């Protein structure tokens, strides 16, 4: 099981440019042809686009990666994005930082004891204003589950 002492673990801030081509690629992968994403020259990003921090967190050092979890036991339980205004627009650059917010256990019906790990990522614009927050709930299962999480 994952060590409780990891709560509060925080990575170094990284920078993520919001890019038009990446928004178009992401929108297409999400099966939309909404012109606000694929035709606008400075589109806003789709609601879940900030998941793309995967590309920008520095060299395998995100808090989740430092927890050293077996991918065969890892499920995604939930995800939330909050925007303090319109979603970030292409051409802007955001600084983000992730911390481990909570770790707790539950007994699963099919997967044995499940460990829940909630991380929070804050996104700030160049002026330092908080523009978006992401909360991710990861589940580490005791055995291969057959439902609940993806």
């Amino acid at each position: 099981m994952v060590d409780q002492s990891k709560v509060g673990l925080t990575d170094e801030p990284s920078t993520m440019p919001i890019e038009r081509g990446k928004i178009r690629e992401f929108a297409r992968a999400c099966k939309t042809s909404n012109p606000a994403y694929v035709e606008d020259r400075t589109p806003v990003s789709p609601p879940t686009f900030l998941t793309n921090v995967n590309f920008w967190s520095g060299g395998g050092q995100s808090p989740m990666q430092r927890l050293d979890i077996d991918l065969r036991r890892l499920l995604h339980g939930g995800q939330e994005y909050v925007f303090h205004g319109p979603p970030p627009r292409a051409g802007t650059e955001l600084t983000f930082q992730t911390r481990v917010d909570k770790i707790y256990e539950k007994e699963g019906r099919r997967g044995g004891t499940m460990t829940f790990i909630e991380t929070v990522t804050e996104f700030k614009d160049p002026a330092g204003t908080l523009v978006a927050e992401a909360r991710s709930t990861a589940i580490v299962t005791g055995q291969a589950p057959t439902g609940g999480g993806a």
Partner: protein
Amino acid sequence: MTVTWDELQEGAKAARREYGPLTRTDFVRYQGASGDFNPIHHDEEFAKSAGFPSVFSVGMLQAGILGCYCTEWLGAENVRRFAVQFREQVWPGDHLVCEATVRRRYEEDGERRVDLELLVTREESGGAAIKGEATFVVP
């Protein structure tokens, strides 16, 4: 966006929409777009070694489909919160149905807002793949 504040009464629904069948190519395309390369979503041998019958979809793919479904209804610039819980896993060949319902209509900080209840259903099982919530401003 063409829907009006008057139309967005509590209980108002977006037109339901079906997606699929989802393919392994859809999963791979999403993984490339998102930067999440967990092999459990594209490597059949890896998925089987973990006890699964095959690869399965990235939860964030169906979340992304749902998010873009919502913004087609209420506007890409207007989303202020989007939250999902993953329920049933989604498998190659599945058809998904997205639905959104206005649960609360209110004004806050000088803005008109609606809170939505969101659902993605797997046609194959009738079960929920995602239960979610969202908040949009209505200009």
